[in-house]
């Protein structure tokens, strides 16, 4: 009985995720796309977007909802990239320079965002969204009128005979930033999968010998590792990745994956520090945290600063990997918040809870729908434009549903006597 209700609870709280798993499978089938293509696109997009999605976790834990103001971090990164291109620094050095410029800028912006969000507690989600729109105005002002006139830039990025930065910048060729991280080390997918399987097994054994794992957990690890290795032995699966039969060989950009792994580790480790404890305490109840002597406002500002800087770096990872290596100077940041927010919610995170796994699963599911939606819709309705609109609907709809579910739960809790902060604030 107890176990059954546990399962029901699990399904209830991950309803959105299961719905999306079903939807993804359905779409992949209906779209009639080559699985090899879907897999390669998925890996590419996971590699490209995961970093930004992971940047959303800390503010959620700190009770600030989905930080749509990560677009501002992306803007900081784009300023960094612009200067890098203008100064002509190429390759990994270029990426590092852009990251270095992003750090202080994004930290400053994050500080300001945090200060502002502290003045609209309970409305952070909408506040950060509108703040992102507002900052977009400032960004346009900067790129249209201030760069090139007050801040000198090389004519590689400005328009000759007019003020402002060019509409699109090229990251390929002599600029040398395209795939600067992805291209360092590319390894076939199967090898990476074996390594991951091995790591899981070794991790289980180490934890077991240190007695922090039960035998059951060890077995779980070992079986998982064996499963990964085993599945790859099936010829159909192996062919999917190896590029047999004229298909693409799927390779993994190891450096980017390592960066994403480091971020996951960072997210995990920071929760064990004093700061992480503070985030959690503030997220659970500001009143209690305040009573416990935690400086609530300061903690929230730090959470947003970290998130903004991470989002900035995430945007650099995204830009160096994106598409065909063009940088849409005035629009590249616009959908960052929307897609990242939708992705983490699809993974089963809510407005007040999020983990690394949810972020990664969410990115995976959201983008699998993204890849297949167009073909699926054109097969279902005979019109590919519907697929385009369906994508937009998915992004907005997921966020709306998550917000509604969260608010609904909050209202119920309030009725049953629990503490609901949004209500306390109202009166």
């Amino acid at each position: 009985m107890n176990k059954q209700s546990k399962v029901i609870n699990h399904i209830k709280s991950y309803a959105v995720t299961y719905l999306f798993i079903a939807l993804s499978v359905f779409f992949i089938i209906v779209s009639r796309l080559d699985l090899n293509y879907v897999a390669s696109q998925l890996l590419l997009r996971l590699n490209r977007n995961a970093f930004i999605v992971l940047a959303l976790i800390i503010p959620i834990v700190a009770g600030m909802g989905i930080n749509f103001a990560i677009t501002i971090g992306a803007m900081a990164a784009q300023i960094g990239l612009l200067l890098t291109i203008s100064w002509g620094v190429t390759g990994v050095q270029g990426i590092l320079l852009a990251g270095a410029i992003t750090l202080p800028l994004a930290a400053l912006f994050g500080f300001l965002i945090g200060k502002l969000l502290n003045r609209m507690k309970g409305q952070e989600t909408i506040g950060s969204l509108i703040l992102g729109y507002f900052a977009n105005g400032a960004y346009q002002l900067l790129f249209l009128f201030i760069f090139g006139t007050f801040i000198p830039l090389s004519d590689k990025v400005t328009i000759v005979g007019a003020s402002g930065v060019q509409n699109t910048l090229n990251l390929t060729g002599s600029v040398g930033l395209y795939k600067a991280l992805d291209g360092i080390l590319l390894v076939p997918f199967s090898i990476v999968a074996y390594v991951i399987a091995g790591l899981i097994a070794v991790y289980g054994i180490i934890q077991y010998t240190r007695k922090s794992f039960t035998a059951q957990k060890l077995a779980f690890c070992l079986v998982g590792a064996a499963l990964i290795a085993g599945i790859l032995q099936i010829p159909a699966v192996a062919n999917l990745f190896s590029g047999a039969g004229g298909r693409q060989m799927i390779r993994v950009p190891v450096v980017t994956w390592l960066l994403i792994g480091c971020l996951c580790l960072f997210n995990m480790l920071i929760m064990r520090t004093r700061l992480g404890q503070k985030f959690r305490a503030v997220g659970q109840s500001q009143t209690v945290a305040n009573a416990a002597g935690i400086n609530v406002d300061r903690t929230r500002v730090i959470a947003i600063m970290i998130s903004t800087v991470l989002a900035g770096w995430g945007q650099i990872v995204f830009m160096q990997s994106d598409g065909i290596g063009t940088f849409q100077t005035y629009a590249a940041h616009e959908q960052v918040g929307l897609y990242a927010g939708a992705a983490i919610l699809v993974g089963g995170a809510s407005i007040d809870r999020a983990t690394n796994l949810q972020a990664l699963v969410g990115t995976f599911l959201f983008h699998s729908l993204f890849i297949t939606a167009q073909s699926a819709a054109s097969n279902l309705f005979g019109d590919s434009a519907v697929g385009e609109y369906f994508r937009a609907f998915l992004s907005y709809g997921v966020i709306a549903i998550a917000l509604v579910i969260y608010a609904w739960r909050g209202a119920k809790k309030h009725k049953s006597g629990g503490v609901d902060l949004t209500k306390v604030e109202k009166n």
Partner: protein
Amino acid sequence: MTQARKKKLTARIITAIVLYVLAAILILVSVFGFFLRGSDSIQNNLNTMRTHAVLHAASGGLVDSIASQARSDKLKELRARKDFRTLGLDEVNSTCDAAAAAARAEAEALYSNATVQNAAGLENAINAMEKAMSVYGGLREKERAVYSDLYVSLVENVPDWTDLLSAAQEDDAKLFSSLATWAEDLSVPANAHLQDGFVKLAHSMAEKEQAADDAELLQQLTASMVGAVSDWTELSELDDEALWEALNREVEGFSAAEAFKTDLLKKAKEYISAAEKGETIAVETKDEGAATVYDTVTDYSFFTASDALNAASEGVESAYQQLWGELNEIIPDLANLDKKMQKTIRTTLENTVWSGGIDYSSRYNAYAAQEGSEALSGSAAFLMQLSALARNILIAGIALCLLASLFMFWDTLTKRFGIPRTIITLFFIYLCLAAVLYDISVPMMLSNVMIRMGMYGILVLAMMPGIQCGIGLNMGMTIGCIAGLLGIVLSLQFNMTGWYGLLFSCVSGAILALPLGWAYSKLLNRMKGSEMTISTYVGFSFVALMCIGWMMLPFNNPKIIWLLSGHGLRVTHSLLGSYAHLLDEFLAFEVLGVTVPTGLLLFLLVCCLLMWLFSRSRTGIAMSAVGSNPRFAEASGISVNKMRTIGTVLSTMIAAVGIVIYSQAFGYAQLYTAPRQLGFIAASAILIGGATVRKAKVSHVIFGVFLFEGVLVLGQQIANAAVAGGGLSEVMRIMISNGIILYALTQTGGASRE
């Protein structure tokens, strides 16, 4: 505490006084500059500048020509050398440039100090030229204005150029008179000379119409091709004919596509090669976006001159010949220049002598552009420049003055109006003054502001019941907008026009909004405390859902659907044939050049009055009580949920009517993603008017929509006049609109929660 505050206050007052003093100095200087303009010595100086500028322009052309000759000579010389191939490109360039620079310096020394023997003759020639040019220029401007008016009314009113052409059957006179039915002034005898031009215009418009239709058809064909073909790689081995046949088999309606065969085959091949490389195939959907159809831009290439203008032009010609003669006497080498160079010199001279106006600063700037100020000594040149800049100095002075007032009365102003409203109001006052100084036509501006007030007014009014009933800023009013758009599309589907169509759109939109608003209010009633977040995203999702809806709904009037696929509504629907501008033009009249859109403003006022009456009624008072203090309202026996439902439904229904009024004033109804941001625009307008997220009055609506639209219209014009290139006004809109909403959010008092 009080000590610190006092200190702050004194600091502020001292800053204000310093700013006032600075502003006063600037304003005095500018008045001095304006005063100088009238004095004789300045006028003489100006004439000296003019003579110098004319000589410079003439000799400048000569010098340019000599320098470029020297450059090409040098290049020839280098080419002849044996080791030419071993020279780098940079080296060749730098050698040639050096030669050109040397020749230029020599020529300048030779010609710039040309002695003027017959000074009076030159002066007379320039005066005559100036006079002839100003007569010609004034007349030309007038005729072009007439042409432009006619052009705009034709382009905006003629529904179908192809029909018009086929009705006239190659008879130009007949075509011209039928054009006159769309622009009455065309039949005036004084405009008879325009016939040829407008006949050409009609032909070109018809061609454009045809081309646009073709492009649309081609796009649809491509889309249906992509939709129908599942695996492009299967088609890869086929040659053109076989491929065409295969496509005809797979795609419905391709038989109509014979005319586009080459284009479609090209596209198909692109897709095939893309499919082979494993790339995704996406149809580039032409994004019509927000069509900015406020102003039709006049194309002057169909302009024909009247006889009077031609005579004036001949006057200019003879005056120029005289001037050219005088110049030739001073610099004999001018006569040896080739035709092209002579023409360039002529353009420069014409622009220098008459730059479009006889006011001080335009004359000064035109002369200064040709180094005219070199003719003057230090202090005279400085004074000249000062009076030329007088206007800019005055604007800066006024800006400083306003800034100083802001510092001086900061406490009083912010306490009464709030920080952003204070800033926006002062900004508006500044824009008004700047508009006067920038010679921006005030009547036109006022007409524009009034139209836009009427256009957005009802949408802003829709915010009011939402705020009053306690759901705050109803960002989900886009739901109502979509109901209204459905009403419009329904009226188009059944070919309804005129008042009947407008009324039908409003009523059916409002009726559709009723159940939607009701369901939406039920949702919001369960989400107390986070309505704004929820309503924003529910609004966004609904817009996105309806994007699919617009594609799928079973409309079938060929005027509103994509022709080829046979289903799905188009993005932009012109209301010109049905009821565009119907309300604007109802009882419209013109006073002092200001067109008053009486019907539009009356409608807004009536709606505001009704809203006001409602808010004085029992229900209205109960609703406001719920909005401002739900606890208290509940305690006094008011059903909070019921009031919230009434308010939300009302807001949604008003939004539906609002979008109909908006579209008729705009002239176009835009579907798909177009309504997404309307909630933000309406919210920022009512907040600028002084509403908060708890309280709103009718006066906030009217004042807010006036201020918001006023700042936007004025700001756009001034930004265009002051800074080249657009974009600045859009940036301003984004920052004002979102800034005020952010401010309102900070005022909801989150900080008190600790």
